[in-house]
């Protein structure tokens, strides 16, 4: 079927975006719009002795200046995170934060004052002349020091910097496995700190209608319904009906825009206070110090093996840097990390302890992968170290330990049970695709040019598709279909893929399907888009909504064709009476259903359906990635020569869009492995990598063409057989690339290197080993 499920349909959204006709928050202009600018802390840890705004307030064009004291006196609520009680060990300590801090600043970038003015320039000029008297305190930014307890306490009165600890598994069983083991591989695995850099920096507009006492928030947010719920209930203590949240076109989210931010609160508050719509637009340099960062985990890991090279136990004691203030999504990555540490392997005993530390840095929160890349990185580094220490080929040691397809469903020693997967078959396919058997020849060729060459693989799995979702399908009287989605597309191409599905399910033209999303007044419920969930959970709900449309259509067709609904068959857009030539088209039914005459009451009015899908345990996209690199030993420069991915994301709805997801995901994973690093000053706590000059995003010319193969093993967890596709590239790339780099350096005696594997780190490792 043209444009149906499985077809490589180009995106409906592309002409709009490619021709600059998208409508992002910053494109929205309103009469009487005023502008807000956030004055931020320049210190990592300091006491605010005083703030003097009088000169700034007097600047012509300044409408008002708000501080943390105003926030408290106006009685606004605070921002906090939900901690998962099932994983929590001991108590959780949060210091819920206001949208403007008072008394203390606990990281560079903490919001101190909100200046509202007629223009953004005036607001910035006014911010420059606000006088703040800080008493600078010692700060703690470096996780390696924080985890050793060797730093100041971030929040006065706490005994340590641990905010909360997640734990899973069976420590005694692991201890027993270790004592019986033939070999234990130990390593401290570091997952470096990174930041998202969405193409569209965050932007918010707040509006307050005094007559209706209703707020409207435009925000670049992945989950508008969640933002409404939290801001209405926790910050303003108003009914959700009094807040409309609109997320129009959003230029990339990657989890970083998954929760609301303080600036969303500030524009709403200021709009009410000054009776003007207020826009706040982040500049790129501001996004480096205000968008949540991610990863920044150090783990002490031990993996035990029997004499045959089979894993018998795993112990991971990890430390997460969650920043100075726990972000609304701050506990999500530690949760996925903790739950997924069995990965694709048969590990009889696992123990995970994940301590989450306050530091004087920006909050960390989900970023593409959110805990999954961290766990996969540990497992795949340990596998390669074991391969080295036990002298077993890296492919073979994985083969010994990968869960086989015969063992499905497989209950891990942690929480999850995997329903499906062909991990060994996928690894073998990737090995073949990467032409691994001829690697030695390619290596010789590199050596003849004076270069080192390495190959590395990563087998990985992730957990996708959390929660439930609600989708609505509505026909108008002309037969056009509107999908009202609880999900939110911010680059993924949902309008295309939902159109493919509806066209396939209901036999309506692909062109006549339209998407409504991202507006809480139009979408009554929805969980937004995070965690590789939209096509699995949202798509399955769409299938159920289509089924409801068909059921309703059958009743109407039965009435119109004067037969019982049980005798009506539905096929490709046509309702027909079984065994006759009597039929009626779905668009005709839609048309008549809007102006029914003399119809029985139970047929109602209009043609629509609502589907709700509960994903249960979710699903487990998985794959194997193989990286091949060449290293210039004189400079330490790595060239990624080849990148193979064989992935299982279940049934493929649109291979072209899947390819896009994999490309982006791989690139972000490779970025972390080779280029990207958030660097804080070791003592003063300043963010050093605070612009694109020093935060090295990968560019197309740093990357090879990717070799992408799909190996679908449909899941039984949803009616479509689809597994999540959004994060799989990012999960496997860092270990595959690192393993390849270390493989290249192995002959020189290098056994480990931290991400990102920059030229200097490689140069240094080679010098140390020599």
């Amino acid at each position, binding site marked *: 079927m043209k444009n149906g499920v499985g077809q490589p349909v180009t995106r409906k959204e592309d002409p709009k975006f490619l021709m600059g006709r998208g409508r992002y928050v910053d494109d929205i202009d309103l009469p009487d719009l005023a502008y807000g600018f956030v004055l931020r802390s320049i210190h990592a840890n300091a006491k605010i002795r005083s703030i003097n705004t009088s000169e700034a307030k007097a600047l012509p064009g300044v409408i008002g200046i708000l501080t943390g004291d105003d926030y408290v006196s106006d009685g606004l609520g605070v921002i906090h995170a939900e901690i998962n009680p099932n994983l929590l060990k001991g108590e959780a300590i949060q210091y819920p934060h206001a949208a403007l801090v008072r008394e203390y600043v606990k990281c560079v970038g903490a919001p101190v004052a909100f200046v509202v003015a007629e223009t953004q320039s005036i607001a910035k000029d006014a911010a420059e002349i606000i006088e703040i008297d800080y008493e600078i305190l010692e700060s703690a930014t470096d996780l390696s020091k924080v985890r050793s307890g060797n730093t100041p306490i971030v929040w006065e009165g706490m005994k340590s910097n641990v905010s909360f600890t997640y734990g899973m598994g069976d420590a005694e069983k692991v201890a027993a496995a270790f004592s019986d083991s033939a070999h234990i591989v130990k390593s401290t695995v570091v997952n470096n700190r990174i930041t998202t850099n969405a193409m569209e920096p965050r932007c918010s507009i707040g509006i307050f209608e005094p007559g209706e006492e209703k707020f409207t928030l435009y925000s670049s947010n992945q989950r508008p319904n969640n933002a409404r719920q939290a801001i209405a209930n926790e910050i303003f203590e108003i009914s959700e009906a009094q807040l409309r949240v609109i997320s129009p076109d959003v230029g990339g989210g990657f989890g970083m825009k998954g929760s609301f931010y303080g600036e969303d609160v500030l524009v709403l508050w200021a709009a009410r206070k000054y009776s003007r719509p207020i826009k706040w637009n982040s500049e790129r340099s501001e996004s480096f110090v205000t968008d949540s960062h991610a990863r920044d985990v150090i783990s002490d890991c031990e993996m035990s093996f029997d004499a045959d090279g089979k894993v018998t136990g795993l112990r991971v004691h990890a430390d997460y840097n969650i920043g100075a203030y726990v972000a609304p999504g701050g506990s999500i990555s530690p949760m996925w990390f903790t739950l997924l540490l069995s990965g694709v392997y048969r590990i009889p005993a696992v123990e995970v302890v994940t301590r989450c530390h306050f530091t004087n840095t920006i909050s960390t929160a989900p970023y593409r992968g959110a805990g999954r890349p961290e766990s996969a990185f540990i497992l795949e580094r340990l596998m390669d170290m074991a391969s080295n220490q036990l002298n077993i080929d890296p492919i073979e040691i994985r083969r010994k330990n990968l869960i086989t397809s015969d063992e499905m469903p497989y209950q891990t020693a942690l929480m999850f049970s995997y329903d499906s997967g062909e991990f060994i078959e996928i690894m073998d396919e990737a090995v073949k695709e990467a032409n691994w058997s001829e690697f030695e020849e390619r290596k010789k060729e590199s050596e003849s040019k004076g270069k080192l060459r390495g190959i590395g693989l990563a087998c990985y799995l992730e957990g996708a598709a959390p929660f439930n979702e609600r989708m609505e399908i509505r026909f108008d009287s002309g037969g056009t279909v509107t999908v009202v989605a609880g999900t939110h597309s911010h680059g993924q191409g949902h309008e295309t893929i939902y159109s493919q599905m509806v066209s396939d399910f209901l036999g309506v033209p692909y062109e006549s399907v339209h998407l409504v999303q991202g507006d809480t007044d139009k979408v009554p419920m929805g969980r937004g888009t995070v965690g590789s969930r939209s096509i699995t959970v949202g798509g399955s709900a769409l299938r159920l909504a289509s089924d409801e449309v068909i059921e309703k259509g059958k009743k109407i067709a039965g009435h119109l064709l004067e037969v019982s609904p049980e005798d009506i068959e539905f096929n490709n857009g046509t309702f027909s009476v079984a065994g006759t030539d009597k039929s009626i088209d779905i668009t005709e039914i839609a048309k008549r259903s809007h102006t029914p005459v003399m119809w029985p009451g139970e047929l109602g009015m209009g043609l629509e359906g609502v589907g709700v899908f509960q994903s249960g345990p979710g699903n487990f996209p998985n794959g194997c990635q193989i990286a091949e690199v060449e290293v210039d030993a004189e*400079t330490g420069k790595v060239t990624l020569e080849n990148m193979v991915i064989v992935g299982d994301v279940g049934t493929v709805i649109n291979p072209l869009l899947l390819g896009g997801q994999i490309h982006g995901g791989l690139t972000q994973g490779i970025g972390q492995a080779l280029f990207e690093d958030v660097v804080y000053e070791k003592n003063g706590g300043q963010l050093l990598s605070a612009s694109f000059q020093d935060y090295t995003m990968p560019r197309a010319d740093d990357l090879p063409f990717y070799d992408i193969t799909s190996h679908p093993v449909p899941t039984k967890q949803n009616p479509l057989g689809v597994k999540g596709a959004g994060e799989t590239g990012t999960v496997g790339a860092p270990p595959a690339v690192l393993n390849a780099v270390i493989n290249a350096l192995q002959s020189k005696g290098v056994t480990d290197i931290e991400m990102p594997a920059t030229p200097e780190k490689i140069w240094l490792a080679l010098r140390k080993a020599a």
Partner: protein
Amino acid sequence: MRPFEFIKPDSEASAIELLGKLSPNVRILAGGTDYLVDLKHTADVPKTVMDISRLPELKGIDEVDDGLRIGAGVTHTEIMQNPLIKKYAPAMIHAAHTIGAVQTRNLGTIGGNLVTCVPSMDSGPTLVALDAEVNIVGKDGTRRISLTDLFVGPRKTSLKSNELLTEIIIPKRSLGKPANFYKFGLRKGQALALVNAASSLWIKGGCFKDLRISIGAVAPVVIRCLKAEKYLEGKKIDEKLVKEAGNIAVTEAKPIDDFRASQSYRNDLIAVLVTRTINAAIDLADKD
């Protein structure tokens, strides 16, 4: 950013006149790729900004009596596309290509790159290796100095506040001279050089002649490695000697040590890059 006066003269003469009147309370804007970034963040907003991007006298690349003249207002993109540069100084094309991104190269000018005088400038080493000179115009007329005499320190040149750098001259003796530029950054494009280097040379009777070695980002300004040059000058082409010249060049540099790269790494890169640029220039040279 506070308000300032913006002026845009239409000839070199009127620019010089205005400069004479307004200096030192005036800053010059050409492509703006460096200065506009500064202007957004600086507390020191000038009284006047003078835009020289449209001065016709600062445009064009021409063959003149004493060599090749490159207008200071020529953009990096224009350098990359110019047939005379391709014929006489192709290493400059390579150097220009490593500057910023397409947009930066379309706006940024060679004169701006030189007078901004950051140690990591990518136009510098190749021009120094080709013995380039610059014409500087002030109210008393034009003076010509060697490019190396322009550079004084980080973001500091020997230009007086009422002078304008108008032209770069590559002397006739350097036209067509085998030369190579090498930049090492953290990625291929849009990256700051950790170290950059350029070498040029002739080969006469199998020996080095008029060897020039220049390195950037490893001293307060782009420098010539005179000791390394002297070490190889007149000697027979030999891989080992070239490597030793790389080591000598290290002794002539004073790289900084910061979070972008350590001093010892930069030192090692100097040796590698100098060696590689000399070897690449040897490959380009006629060997008789």
